[in-house]
């Protein structure tokens, strides 16, 4: 089977997964025995059959289930995710508002993971089995062991409540308006609007949630880089480089590191999708107005158009990443294409 045929087949499979995800979420959210209507209309109005019927019509809840799904898919293909029950806005509009905040937080978390994880990994590999290595592995291990929600609380207590070094929950200082919506990412929009106060504020607010969210990825990066660097340094070409008399620093920086970084970068790419999920708890603790908070809000209010929207965004991201990895596998190892 040729590479393109293999990729084509993977694409079809990815599409199948997405369809299964959409059916799965749709069924799951409809299996919830709760009453989404009463979740949004007051105690009093849910008793009024006329009002109930009106709401059911508005949100399409009066149709049989397969028909509701058919409508959902048809609208989905038109880029219409329906009307959110909890915010009463189109879900697409909600996502445009919440997703950018999550993306910028996730990118910031990634930056943290790289800028801290990579040096740690290098130090650990170079000073293998000595105290810097043990210390680094210990830090990396803490990063992957501490529950995000607890680390978040700890940071808030130390850096906000006690030391007052960093601002508390939220995205901007209170009393500060968001810059004009261009990309939805406040950092970028602040730069575009040349609103340096807002930029400073959003960056300061971002430090804690980014570190908390990125700590897990940081641990992974450090450990992954250490092990691949250790492996690379015992490879033949590195030995050759050493034999040629190159100084150890140039051996590490010039040869081993370049090779060891590649798997680490790939790992990072895959962790990114996982971070989008990890954002749920982080955003809840730091009142970060992103997709995670929206997910919790829609789940609490049994708002399935909204919940479905969030799930689809995350699922699409994840499936596409999987697809990429599968394709890479296919290129690497032609045997896989056949099975």
């Amino acid at each position: 089977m040729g590479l393109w045929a293999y990729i084509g087949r993977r694409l079809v499979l990815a599409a199948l997964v997405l369809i299964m995800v959409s059916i799965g979420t749709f069924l799951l959210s409809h299996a919830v025995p709760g009453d989404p209507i009463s979740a949004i209309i007051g105690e009093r109005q849910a008793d009024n059959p006329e009002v109930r019927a009106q709401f059911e019509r508005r949100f399409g809840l009066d149709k049989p289930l397969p028909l509701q799904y058919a409508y959902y898919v048809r609208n989905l293909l038109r880029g219409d995710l329906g009307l959110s029950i909890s915010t009463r806005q189109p879900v697409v509009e909600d996502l445009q508002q919440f997703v950018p905040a999550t993306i910028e937080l996730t990118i910031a978390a990634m930056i943290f993971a790289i800028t801290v994880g990579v040096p740690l990994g290098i130090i650990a590999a170079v000073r293998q089995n000595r105290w810097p290595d043990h210390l680094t592995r210990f830090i990396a291990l803490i990063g992957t062991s501490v529950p995000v929600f607890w680390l978040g609380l700890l940071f808030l207590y130390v850096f906000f409540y006690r030391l007052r070094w960093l601002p508390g929950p939220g995205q901007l200082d209170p009393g500060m308006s968001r810059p004009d919506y261009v990309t939805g990412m406040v950092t970028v929009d602040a730069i575009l609007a040349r609103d340096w106060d807002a930029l400073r504020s959003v960056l300061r607010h971002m430090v804690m949630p980014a570190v908390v969210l990125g700590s897990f990825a940081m641990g992974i990066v450090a450990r992954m880089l250490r092990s691949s660097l250790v492996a690379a340094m015992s490879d033949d070409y590195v030995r050759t480089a050493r034999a040629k008399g190159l100084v150890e620093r140039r051996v590490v920086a010039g040869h081993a590191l370049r090779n060891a970084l590649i798997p680490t970068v790939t790992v990072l790419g895959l962790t990114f999708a996982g971070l989008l999920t990890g954002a749920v708890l982080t955003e809840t603790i730091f009142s970060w107005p992103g997709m995670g908070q929206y997910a919790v809000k829609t789940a609490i209010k049994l708002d399935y158009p909204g919940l479905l929207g969030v799930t689809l965004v995350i699922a699409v991201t994840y499936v596409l990443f999987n697809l990429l990895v599968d394709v890479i596998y296919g290129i690497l190892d032609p045997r896989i294409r056949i099975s």
Partner: protein
Amino acid sequence: MTDTRLSDLVQAMNEGRINRRQFIQWALALGVSLPALALGPGAGAAPASPPRVPSSRSQTDATTLIIADNLAGNWITLDPARIYEVNSQAAMNVVYECLYHLPDSTKADQFEPLLAEAMPDVSADGKVVTIKLRPGVKFHNTGNEMTSADWIYSWNRLKAVADNPSFLAEYVGTYEAVDPLTLKLTLETPNAALVPILAATPLSVTDSKAVMEQGGADLTSAGTPEAQGTIDFMTKQSAGTGPYRVTTWDIETEVVVEAHADYWGGAPKLQRIIWRNVGDPNTQLQLVQTGEIDIAYAVDPDKVAEVEADPNLQIFQAPTLNLDYLAFNTSEAVGGPLAKKELRQAIAYAIDYDGIINGLSGGASIRPATMIPLGLLGTEEVKDLAYKPDLAKAQELFATVGGPVELTLTYGADASSSNGVSLDVLLAKIQADLQKIDGLTVKLNPMDQAQRLADFRAAKIAFTFSGWSADYPDVHAYAEPFGKTGGAAAKRVNYSNPQVDALLAQGIGELDPEKRKQTYIDLQKLMIDDAAFIALEQPIDRKPASKAVQNVTTHSIYMIQLRYASKTA
């Protein structure tokens, strides 16, 4: 939980089965495609949010009042035909206006004319009500003059959109415009609570011309769907007569209202009021303490002492008209042993009310005897009849039920009492109190709040904790739902007492205040003995604020009375 294929991949690469350039390409592709991927469908579309005013620093000066609340969680809209949320009433009260209003909720019977010129003129049989409108009132969005036609349109619209508050339109009977400044209401039966009802914010007036320009529908029949244009317009702007108008509506960040200089009552003292979206009450308090905001909506009872000790802060406080209560299903089929009045009374005698009010709620509550809050007609008179903790009596009553009893106490998960006490904590306290009765076991069952409400409404829950807030501040707004057979709350516990029904029918038609009061006193005595509901606490609302804030009070309906607010520098 890393992807296990990663390690395979790394191994593959370490073993040299890779082309490095290919990998760098893939890695780059990953990084670049991310933002696009995560945006998902519709990402290409132009941002649909409204054009924003250029970013401006809102100054914490004497003309700007900044308030923090969990907007994203508690606010939905300020459209009078759709509003049913509690916290946003503070903004509603300064943006839209009713015929009557209640300036101070601690004087719950002192309603005053607002857009009406005087109190209503009621015919001898109590069925025809004539109301004169205040002349020269202008809408803040267009400057159009308010007339009776606007009222007719607004009430029609409230009915037609069939949303949460639409039922309020039923109370005003049939209405017509006699002349541009006179309304005539024809009721089927006399209604002693008409003025409080007319003060409910959904019955306020909207600029009919402005709404119709947005594609407002012909509103002759209920259930007329409204044009999306109208819904958007009414969500993101305002079209009322109030002293402030909405200029920014973004509940994820802030809601801003600006002063209406041409206001009929004279220009307001503040230039603008800003509500900030701050979800966590502890953060709200910290922001007040650092002077970044002026008023916080909520405060943990255990933090009140801290606020009181702060020389820069004050606390606005007043009793609410909200109630936290326990409800027992009185039917054998659902309630089981709870169908026996003695068991319900035993439970009422076992609860340590003082521990709840002074321990958990930090004293921020009072306790009425029945499901009618203190401050309303005829409640002070029965206050002392409330159940008091008496374990011996509880045990004695429990003995008449016979045999051990196991109950499941259902409540909304992840919710708090009206005082901000976590229900997990409050209910664990009640569980421990009830289990002091020998032979009684209580299991806690936290349930999704929406689902609990649905089940409770369908009268499927035997024993539950719930809360209630007023639709309008009148004794009848509580006595009817809780007392009347088939009433909104009574039917959830299958409660029915014909004597109470008879008294209720008398009470609503009785226009003489003294006779009316006696009716409600008699009725409450019956309800105390029936013990279908136990009122646990009526919270005192407490809002920490900067001392610079003046002429503000908490309010049982509007949350915060901001109509007269001002600030010192």
